[in-house]
């Protein structure tokens, strides 16, 4: 957790909720990611949002969070990019267990422990799919799986532009 940029995949082993982990795993193998400067970016798989998530964000310059997002309106597989906590105001958690990602990030901000930049890449999951047997399979399903590569491209794009902006300061 010493790199200035951290990519955190949130999820679980099951169904479309696996998206965050699947993206982080695929990023590790992606040539475009491997070409980024060594020691600047690290990848992490996290379970439920908790203090480990805040710990993973603490002292970072940029955090890229990857998660799945259930939607009543959008079909499964649509990619969304949110930057900053204000955009998260339009999102509330499906978690029935008190501590969801938007709340945790707002607590992190109140505690002064958030990176300067927080970007969230999310894939939509159709609400009916989230409640179907598909949600308990080990693979994320075809629509969500198809979003992994474009999500990696989008993340690498964010990482490149952030590093480029930092380059003069580093130099």
């Amino acid at each position, binding site marked *: 957790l010493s790199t200035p940029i951290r990519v955190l995949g949130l999820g679980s082993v099951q169904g479309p909720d696996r998206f965050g982990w699947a993206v982080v795993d695929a990023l590790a193998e992606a040539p475009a990611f491997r070409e980024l400067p060594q020691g600047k970016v690290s990848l992490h798989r996290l379970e*439920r949002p908790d203090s480990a998530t805040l710990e993973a964000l603490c002292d970072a310059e940029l955090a890229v969070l990857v998660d799945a997002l259930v939607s009543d309106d959008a079909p499964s597989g649509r990619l969304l990019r949110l930057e900053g906590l204000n955009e998260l105001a339009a999102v509330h958690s499906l978690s*029935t267990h*008190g501590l969801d990602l938007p709340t945790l990030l707002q607590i992190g901000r109140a505690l002064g422990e958030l990176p300067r930049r927080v970007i969230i890449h999310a894939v939509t999951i159709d609400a009916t799919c989230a409640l179907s047997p598909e949600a308990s399979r080990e693979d994320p399903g075809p629509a969500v799986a198809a979003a992994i590569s474009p999500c990696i491209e989008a993340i690498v794009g964010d990482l490149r532009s952030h590093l480029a902006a930092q380059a003069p300061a580093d130099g």
Partner: protein
Amino acid sequence: MPLKIAKSGCAGETAMSARRNVNIRVPVLARVEGEGALEIDISGDAITNLKLRIFEPPRYFEKFLEGRSHEDVLDTVARICGICPVAYQMSAVQALEAAFGVEVDDWVRDARRLFYCGEWLQSHSLHVHLLAAPDFLGFDNAIAMAARYPDIVRRGLMLQALGNEIIRLLGARSVHPVGARIGGFWRAPRPDQVESLAERLEAALPQAEALVVWAGTLPVPDQTQPFTSVCLRHPTEYPMTGGRLVSDRGLDIAIEDFDQHFAEQHVPRSTALHCLLDGEPYLVGPLARLNNNFDRLEPRARTALEQTGIGFPSANLYHSLLARTVEIFQVMLEAVALLRRYRMPTQAYIDYEPVAGTGCGCTEAPRGVLWHRYEIDSAAAVASARIVPPTSQNQARIEADLRGSLQALGLDRPEEELRRRGETVIRNYDPCISCATHFLTLKLRR
């Protein structure tokens, strides 16, 4: 757990007439586990209608289990709840082992208690710091509280993470763990993992002790009420993984006799069954446990509680939060002791042969008594399953408390104050609505 795009916020709707007929609606209760609503009608100085509505759809877990192999039970029941999966697994494994006549060894018993300590630690820490404390300190939520009390919130998150670490040690992951099996665990943790966690827990003990003292200073309403405390009681241990079902009003039964005294019933406003003890509401959970088991506390936990000057047993339901903090300290002390005496076993489970039979299991989930009963057929498949979660047992008690607490506050109080008190009362029970469905939105009319 995935996020969801908001379609609408939740807000109370109000209407007040010159005759003081008030209509309050809390369509979705915040800071509770799951989804439920509160509806209250007040006419003059009387509550004419009060309903705690649980509207999450029924989940039919018992039916899902029918016809499945007994080996599927633990992983299936863990999915009932993201915050107390260990409780579901431990009640289920106890019931199945009773059905098969399996006796586990001391290593398994210790490992299961450690596993359960982790769940109490993470669940209680979350509830105390992020769900309940903002009510007593005058904040709308934990985010606002974090800005004013950052060290308190940091401590809570740290303790929750330690609980998750314990669960992960034995369950491979903290959400829906997969380490438990009939006869024990699939694998035993390595001694170096155990040593490292023991050191971290031991270093955090002073913070858990300070948490008890802090909880004793919280400004909670000074309101007592009559209620029956029901929990397990064990000959020597603080109740968690075994014992007899007891109450402070004379109940003392084997867990197999549950049906002789407890009865579940459908109510139209709820997808959760209401469970009554001899026809009356009763309390399960940390306050009930502490009221009946003060003498089973570790000496350091008892001393910390005594330092608060608050006596137990307590008839003040708001002392539930203090009870949770005592239990946090208790399970951390226990976990350190269990980890310190850990020895790597040659095998982390004992072998067993499934046979047709029926078994009951009853353990103390963080929110209270969790009772299971399974009937296994000759093909080693589940013929029938029954699960009685703590929140369905507390529902009638919560409604009785709401009625008494709002009357005690004064029904002529401003609508916002009534709404806040109502939500505080409910959150004080740490209801797990998702588990109970088989639930909050406030509607108030007066």
